[in-house]
């Protein structure tokens, strides 16, 4: 584990990302030992493998025309799995849209995720995931909600509850990112802001978003402790997030983590990254692949093997397929689904409009 002092004294202006294992998964320091048990580390590997398999299959469902636009997670999974392991039952998850593994850990079902990207709001019901908010499409606007939830948790006396709120690198140019940091700081709200800096906002590289040397420094002016972390290093992410959560729930206020990573896939299935990225850049990041590194650690530490990986993947694929089939078998979209959820009670004017289309369609519900 990183010692508390290192974390407390961390200065993002030095622009040195916190990293615990190298590109091959070997610990950088001999004195460092993971905070997690061997068993939990192996579980993290399985979770990461599962996210990756589900994500690749989602892209393929979309390619088959069975799902609409989907944002791939490939290459960013260490962040999600680490966050999922740090998050407690009572914590809130305020998503952007590219946090698949963290959603699964929160209890969102793959069926729901597929249903959402198949174009049905029922996918945001999150039947078994409490305190999970639906996807917020307007970039960074959701971070402000996290600050408000933070106030509410403090006001209601929930002392061991944190809010994990996500945004991408492009979102840090939005005013709402700054308003959220400021409100959370002024209110000492227990929010952990996680910036997934995957280098591109669709096609626009980070150097065109900001002149700051990194994103973590943006927290400093708000007096929000901030860490720059190697987002492809599962252990670094896990320790940084644990520290951040601890800070937030101890009443010290919000925390910011910039997870430096790379979006290996496209922004969404409608995007073509060859237009704005080079092969060299992609190859360099491939060396830092989070799954490869975590497996490297497991091999190096001799805490497990991967003899059954193929078997595991085919078992995951079956499970994922059955979730997708469940999404395909979901009840048909009804007229009630258009009108039924906007207000607690349907106002007369909407009843009128609903009746009008119902009559035209011949009495459908």
């Amino acid at each position: 584990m990183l010692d508390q002092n290192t974390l407390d004294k961390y200065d993002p202006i030095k622009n040195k990302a916190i990293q615990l294992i190298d590109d091959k998964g070997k610990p950088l320091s001999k004195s460092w030992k993971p905070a997690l048990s061997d068993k939990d580390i192996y579980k993290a590997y399985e979770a990461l493998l599962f996210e990756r398999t589900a994500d690749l299959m989602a892209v393929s469902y979309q390619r088959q025309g069975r799902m609409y636009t989907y944002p791939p997670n490939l290459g960013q999974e260490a962040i999600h799995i680490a966050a999922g392991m740090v998050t407690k039952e009572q914590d809130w998850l305020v998503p952007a849209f590219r946090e698949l593994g963290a959603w699964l850990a929160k209890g969102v079902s793959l069926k729901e995720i597929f249903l959402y990207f198949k174009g049905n709001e029922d996918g945001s019901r999150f039947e078994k995931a409490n305190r999970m908010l639906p996807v917020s499409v307007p970039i960074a606007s959701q971070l402000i909600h996290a600050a408000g939830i933070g106030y509410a948790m403090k006001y209601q006396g929930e002392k061991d509850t944190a809010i994990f709120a996500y945004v991408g690198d492009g979102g840090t140019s939005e005013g709402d990112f700054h308003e959220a940091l400021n409100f959370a700081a002024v209110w000492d709200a227990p929010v952990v802001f996680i910036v997934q800096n995957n280098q591109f906002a669709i096609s626009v590289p980070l150097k065109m978003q900001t002149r700051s040397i990194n994103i973590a420094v943006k927290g400093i002016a708000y007096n929000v402790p901030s860490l720059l972390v190697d987002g492809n290093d599962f252990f670094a992410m896990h320790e940084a997030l644990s520290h951040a959560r601890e800070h937030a729930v101890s009443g010290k206020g919000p925390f910011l983590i910039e997870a430096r990573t790379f979006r290996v896939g496209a922004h969404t299935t409608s995007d073509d990254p060859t237009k704005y990225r080079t092969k060299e850049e992609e190859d360099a990041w491939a060396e830092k692949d989070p799954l490869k590194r975590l497996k490297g650690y497991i091999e190096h530490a001799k805490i497990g093997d991967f003899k059954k990986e193929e078997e595991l993947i085919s078992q995951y694929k079956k499970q994922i397929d059955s979730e997708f089939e469940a999404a395909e078998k979901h009840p048909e979209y009804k007229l009630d689904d258009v009108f039924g959820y906007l207000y607690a009670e349907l106002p007369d004017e909407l009843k009128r409009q609903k009746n009008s289309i119902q009559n035209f369609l011949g009495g459908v519900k």
Partner: protein
Amino acid sequence: MKVMNLVQAINDAMDLKLADDKSIVVYGEDVGVEGGVFRVTEGLQLKHGADRVFDSPLAESGIAGTALGMAISGMKPIIEMQFDGFVYPAMNQILSHVSRFRNRSRGKYSVPMVIRIPYGGGINALEHHSESPEAYFGHTPGLKVVIPSTPYDAKGLLISAIEDPDPVIFMEPKRIYRAVKQEVPEELYRIPIGKAKLLQAGEQITVIAYGAMIRETQKAIALAKQKGYSVELIDLRSIWPIDRETIAQSVRKTGRALVVTEAPQSYGPAAELISIINEEAFLSLEAPPSRLTGFDTVIPLPLGEKYYNISPERIAAEIDRLIRY
């Protein structure tokens, strides 16, 4: 009963609800120690504590967005936009999230919050202090929009708005904040959202107005009375939902309709009301329904407002034209 103006009635509604429900908080710019630039929240912080009535950082998007966060996590925030024109930075939060969160989450999360906005012209103020932006909110699915014109309605409507499970935009005609006084019950009472109020019965024409335009129209009706005209006056009170039935019944009876609003004309509340009149009372009409609205210009600074503001004389002249049509 106690004689109150609009400011006192709105303050009283918040005071009673704060005492009644611990999940309610009131915040915004200068609402805490100062009690708001119009003193609408005066005394509330002292009485209910600084964790329940407080000043927030000066950022309207942040105020609206944090209130949404509170509302979906068990609280009932009442926030203040200091002036009508200051709500624009919060529009993304209001239009993209506050109005939609229930729908987006299929009813898992509801947004019981109130956004108070002092609005309208006639107070000799700077730019962005005299706007009438109600059409933006009325046009946005998922919101309710309320505008009282009297202290009695202000208190009863605000209590309903606070208790409503959905977000309500509560617009306060600041021009008549202290101009209208009335006896108001001291206890909690509710006026339903979505119901217009027949203020005065008449035979020859229906005038529909709301907010500060009610007082101007009442003056106009006094002028019209001198000519022997009988005018029916409806206070719309709710911009959305609109009380279609009350409007329809009145215009079917009188056969003539005039809508008076401060908001700019095009795509505004008057256009919506006249559409409803055409849909519901077309065959009863004796004259084309008419509207007196703000121009499709920026509301001018104080020296130009004499051209923009709708005077009782203009309203009376339009009543006269429609009756003689």
